[in-house]
């Protein structure tokens, strides 16, 4: 069955550089002595620790469990001892450290007891809970916990399940190799996903620059009991973006700010399907992934890597980096980021490591002003007006940036790629987004503080009135009280008020303090006059005259 395909706006054709790593089989990296496992390898809450330093651990054992709905578990990729639990540098663009478990391998690689799930016999909710505890997250790079997306939702039933095998970023070939070598296992995973979602239709989208992967998947799907369509989509970056792929395959657009289920679609990466299969049919949690290592390395290729392996060891496994290497990119060259250090671990999001050299990614010439040529708008897959957003971000006209839908920007970098003035546009949009978010938060905090203060003032006022009422009651009830005591009280109150007045005069803010001496003297004179008139006023009792004086 040949599906009709649809188009999204724009897109670009960067040089693919896939062949360097796509033509050799996946190599399994030997288990290292030491693994570092960040507790945050997914979108959502950080996992809750289940082990302590010194614990003996088996391969596949749960180290940290999901905390809340949007979270995922972390497991031991091999057997050994917990050597440390501390903040360490993680592969994140921020370069900030995060809590990690250090596992010393004992070299025995002893598994926990593994049990396949009879997923059709168990209630679906049970299978989904097990997937959460298996650490299954989106392996396309976003690492959103998959169990959340696999729940059946009566309000938004999933009519079409889409498997993303587009792999549109240059250099990356891990999904390509996975589909070529393990197509049947991927399809087993897809079947489980389709069963859990109750989706009548299922499509696998693969860019047409991967004919071998498409052929392998087609052959595997032909053997499947369920109908899974393998659709080759045109190679066009960012055709592997979930929303773009959904548009290409179904012709429907996920509404802005909504999830794909809104239009009856759910989308997963093919590698995620593979991990679902490994867990359900073999009881193996997510403890490894396939990573492309390419660029300026001796033997580019794909590697099956235990999570937590240091990236420098992975680069060594690929024959080591060339001498001109000036950095390492995690992800692709369009949306990836420069690693803060090579001594960070492979995590669930690590789909690709590119050793970069100046000849591969030459330094951009200095940015020129925008000439409004609108190549960016022509290339934008979301149909934004990047030149306007740039202008608003640059001038910090953030409300305008929001009006022009900066939050619909997927940061794919197409605008940047085509800009003849070499303006780092994506940077500007990120800045605008984070500024707007920060301002919104500040505004919320200010509103909350104002509400609290208003409430407090109201409470004080209410208490005052209550007290006054009580006093009045008491006074009415005790007329016999001696007038002497009353007098003393009055005097004390008067004295206290005088003191308060003096204090107030002292601490009341003066915006006149910085003025020169002459001006200060003038201000003092005016203050004195004012004090005089106000003190005179009640005695004079002549408001008309007062008005005239003013």
């Amino acid at each position, binding site marked *: 069955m040949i599906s009709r395909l649809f188009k*999204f*706006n724009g897109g*670009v054709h*960067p*040089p693919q550089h896939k062949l360097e790593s796509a033509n050799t089989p996946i190599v399994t990296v030997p288990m290292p002595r030491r693994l570092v496992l960040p507790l945050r390898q997914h979108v959502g809450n950080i996992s809750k620790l289940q082990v302590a330093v010194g614990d003996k651990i088996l391969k596949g054992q749960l180290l940290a469990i999901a905390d809340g709905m949007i979270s995922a578990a972390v497991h031991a990729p091999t057997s050994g001892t917990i050597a440390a639990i501390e903040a360490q540098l993680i592969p994140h663009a921020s370069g900030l450290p995060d809590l990690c478990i250090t596992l010393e391998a004992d070299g025995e690689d002893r598994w926990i007891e593994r049990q396949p799930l009879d997923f059709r016999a168990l209630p679906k909710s049970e299978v989904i809970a097990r997937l959460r505890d298996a650490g299954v997250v989106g392996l396309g790079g976003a690492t959103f916990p998959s169990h959340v997306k696999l729940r059946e939702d009566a309000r938004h039933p999933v009519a079409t399940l889409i498997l993303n095998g587009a792999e549109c970023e*240059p250099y990356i070939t891990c999904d390509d190799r996975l589909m070529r070598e393990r197509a049947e296992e991927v399809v087993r995973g897809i079947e489980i996903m389709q069963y859990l979602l109750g989706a009548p239709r299922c499509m696998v989208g693969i860019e047409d620059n991967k004919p071998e992967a498409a052929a392998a998947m087609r052959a595997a799907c032909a053997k499947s009991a369920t109908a899974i369509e393998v659709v080759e989509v045109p190679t066009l970056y960012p055709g592997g973006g979930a*929303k773009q792929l959904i*548009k290409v395959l179904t012709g429907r*657009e*996920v*509404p*802005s700010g*909504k999830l794909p289920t809104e239009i009856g679609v759910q989308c997963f990466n093919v590698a995620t399907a593979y991990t679902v299969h490994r867990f359900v049919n073999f009881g193996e949690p997510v403890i490894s992934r396939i990573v492309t290592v390419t660029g300026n390395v001796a033997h580019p290729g794909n590697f099956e890597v235990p999570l937590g392996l240091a990236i420098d060891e992975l680069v060594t496994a690929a024959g080591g980096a060339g001498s001109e290497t*000036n*950095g390492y*990119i995690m*992800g692709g*060259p*369009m*949306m*990836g*980021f*420069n690693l803060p250090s090579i001594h960070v671990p492979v995590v669930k999001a690590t789909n690709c490591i590119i050793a*970069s050299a100046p000849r591969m*990614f030459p*330094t*951009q*010439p*200095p940015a*020129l*002003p*925008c*000439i*409004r*040529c*609108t*190549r960016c*708008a*022509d290339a934008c*897959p*979301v*149909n*934004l*007006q990047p*030149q*306007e957003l740039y202008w608003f971000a640059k001038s910090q006209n953030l409300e305008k940036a929001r009006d*022009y*839908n900066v939050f*619909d920007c997927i940061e794919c*970098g197409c605008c*940047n*790629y*085509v*800009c*003849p*003035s*070499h303006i*780092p546009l*994506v*940077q500007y949009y990120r800045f605008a987004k984070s500024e707007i978010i920060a301002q919104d938060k500040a505004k919320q905090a200010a509103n909350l503080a104002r509400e609290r203060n208003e409430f407090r003032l109201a409470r004080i006022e209410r208490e005052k009135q209550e007290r006054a009422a009580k006093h009045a009651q008491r006074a009415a009830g005790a007329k016999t009280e001696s007038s002497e005591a009353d007098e003393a009280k009055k005097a004390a109150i008067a004295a206290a008020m005088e003191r308060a007045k003096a204090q107030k005069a002292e601490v009341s803010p003066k915006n006149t303090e910085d003025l020169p001496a002459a001006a200060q003297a003038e201000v003092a004179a005016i203050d004195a006059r004012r004090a005089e008139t106000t003190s005179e006023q009640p005695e004079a009792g002549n408001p008309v005259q007062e008005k005239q004086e003013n």
Partner: protein
Amino acid sequence: MSAPPYITGNTSVSMIMLKVLLALVPGIIAYVWLFGSGILITLALASVTALASEALMLKLRRRPIWPFLSDNSALVTAWLLALALPPLAPWWLVVVGTLFAIVVAKQLYGGLGYNPFNPAMIGYAVLLISFPVIMTQWPAPLELAQAKLSFSDQLAYIFGRVLPVGVQLDAISTATPLDYLKTQLKLEHAMADIRHAPVFGVLGAKGGEIVAGAYLLGGLYLVQQRIITWHIPAAFLGGLAAISGIFFVIDPQHYVSPAFHLFGGAAMLCAFFIATDPVSGPTTPRGKLIFAASIGVLTWVIRAYGGYPDGVAFAVLLMNLCVPLIDAYTQPRVFGHEKS
């Protein structure tokens, strides 16, 4: 190596501007062939003035000189202005026009990317208002000229206003067809008779129509190279053809044919090279259509009823004024949004 994307395409502003210059070359060749080599002197004069004044202004504004000078945008302005001027215009006219375009219209507004008006058209409008007589004194196509000037004669005329002995100004200059048409229609002459005057060619002006054809060729190259999109040329020519066509059909005695409008005056130059200036034009596809079609209509209105024979410059400048408004009201639908 700090932020993604780490790769970019190999476009640059200087490359874009270079291709625009390249696209003008067929028009210039036709120009030289039909009107003589004087235009090359004007082009050179405008280029030198533009580069020198741009460099000076960048220095005064404390901006890096080389990155901006090498973007070729000053040359594009210079060439467009030079091609819009009468080919044997005195040297100072070219210099004054170019200076105004680069210094006032471009650099004083902030330089590349910041000028709200098309600099070449500002330069042209200033000259047309200040020196209307010289600006409408066009040399006749060589085919019609009674005397032919050598290159050195043209040089002497441009720099010293000296004509060779025995040659009168009338022998080399003529009214442009648009000008001729306007005065003859005012004298209530019949259109059929007017069109038989020697200054008219098959479509537009004799000679001028061929230059226009060469501009069209260069413009199509720009579209093919994706330097410009089809929107502005198509909408401009469409707008001009539509309104001139309607009036031509209703009253052919007083209104000249759309073909004449399209191939006469600066219409083709405007369609592909002037109205397509990205900096001073709108950015949305619908906005480009509205902008360019309006320029086409305005051009016709000024040609038919205005005080000047050609209306391109004023039409472009008037529509430059409307660009922010056009952009604001023609924002395209964003992915995943309802139709606005």
